[in-house]
């Protein structure tokens, strides 16, 4: 598998002319961008009154995602750090306005003027320090703080992200919550490693009573558990949505009793004086089935 783009080069270098070309030539990329942005727009849950809104596309790149916004009648402003990507957007004659800007430096918009924001596969880039002056926490803070200020109260931001690991997801979500956003993570196709897609669905201001708002779990409102087995009936449809299958609780695997069970058993045996191997990160790990 190819290394994550975020680990190869800064975005303005990685998204060079040849990478940007793919956004006009690869039907696979075009298709994915369209699907992701349609879903993001759906999760924005704009009022169903047919009135076009002013939206942001953060990391708008070649404008594929913006085209989805235009097709739905909205006006949009797109910003991206890569000139090569924006050149493709110009070539494509997108209807939105484009800005060459680094979201990690904060967004320069007046307060409360934006009706909603989407971002497709871009925000995880902020978790990397590409220059010695880059501090991911500060860049995330600048980004979310300025995004929060520019959104109208009650407006939403839907950010589709590819966090590299749990720590990155927490870092991104935590920064959003500290900026004042309410919300959580919506996971589509959680059971498929290929099609699994994560969306941060953030609301500016107090969470609305709208049933479609993904309720964040946990007292600080930060951690949205993605563990099916912990989902109670009220929260599950909104925190996590699986568009493919009917929801069912994860069945306990009969054969493996889980790490906690193993650790408890080992402790019992130790107390009885048996010699038991030390607990390590390998304890009760999943093993390949052999034939």
């Amino acid at each position, binding site marked *: 598998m190819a290394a994550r783009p975020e680990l190869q080069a800064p975005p303005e270098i990685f998204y060079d002319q040849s990478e940007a070309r793919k956004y006009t030539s690869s039907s696979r990329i075009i298709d994915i961008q369209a699907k992701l942005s349609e879903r993001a727009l759906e999760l924005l849950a704009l009022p169903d009154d*047919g*009135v*076009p*809104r*002013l939206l942001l596309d953060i990391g708008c790149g070649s404008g594929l995602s913006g085209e989805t916004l235009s097709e739905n*009648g909205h*006006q949009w*402003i797109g*910003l991206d*750090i890569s000139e090569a990507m*924006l*050149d493709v957007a*110009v070539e494509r004659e997108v*209807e939105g*306005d*484009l*800005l*060459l*800007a*680094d979201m990690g*430096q*904060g*967004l*320069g*918009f*007046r307060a*409360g*003027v*934006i009706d909603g924001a989407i971002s497709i596969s871009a925000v995880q880039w902020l978790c990397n320090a590409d*220059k010695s*002056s880059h501090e991911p926490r500060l860049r995330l803070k*600048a980004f979310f703080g*300025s995004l929060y200020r*520019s959104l109208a109260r009650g407006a939403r931001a839907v950010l589709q992200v590819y966090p590299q690991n749990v720590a990155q997801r927490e870092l991104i979500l935590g920064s959003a919550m500290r900026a004042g956003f309410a919300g959580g993570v919506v996971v589509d196709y959680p059971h498929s490693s290929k099609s699994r897609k994560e969306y941060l669905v953030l609301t500016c201001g107090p969470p609305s009573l709208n049933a479609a708002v993904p309720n964040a779990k946990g007292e600080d409102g930060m951690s949205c558990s993605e563990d099916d087995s912990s989902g109670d009936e009220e929260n599950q449809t909104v925190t996590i949505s699986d568009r493919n299958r009917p929801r069912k609780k994860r069945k306990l695997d009969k054969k493996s009793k889980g790490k906690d069970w193993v650790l408890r058993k080992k402790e019992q045996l130790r107390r009885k004086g048996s010699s038991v191997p030390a607990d390590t990160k390998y304890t009760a790990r999943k093993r390949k089935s052999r034939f």
Partner: protein
Amino acid sequence: MRLLTHNMLSSNIKGVTNGFPLKIEAEKVVEKEVDMNTDFLKNIFSKIEWKPFVEAAKTLGFSELPEDADSSLLDSHEFLTKFHHALLEIHLEEGALVCPETERKFPVSKGIPNMLLHEDEV
């Protein structure tokens, strides 16, 4: 960049307290026709800072907007047509946006303002 965006943009430089409105230096202006949507115009109207909008339109060569406007004008087709034109059909293609406090220039090329900050401006 259209005046819709100009009206929302403000200079983001560290220490700047009022970065709005950015002054416009126009070298090339183009017009592109778009369909008028009155729902959009009526909805966005309350968010527009009118005086800077009128000034910006003049800078780009369009001076038919009324100096003052309130929502009662939204019933006038004549007003809506002008509002629509100034907001969505006139593009600053080449030139610069200038921070009102620091005079720092943000160049605009191929219609795209370069809003990237230098490290000491963040």
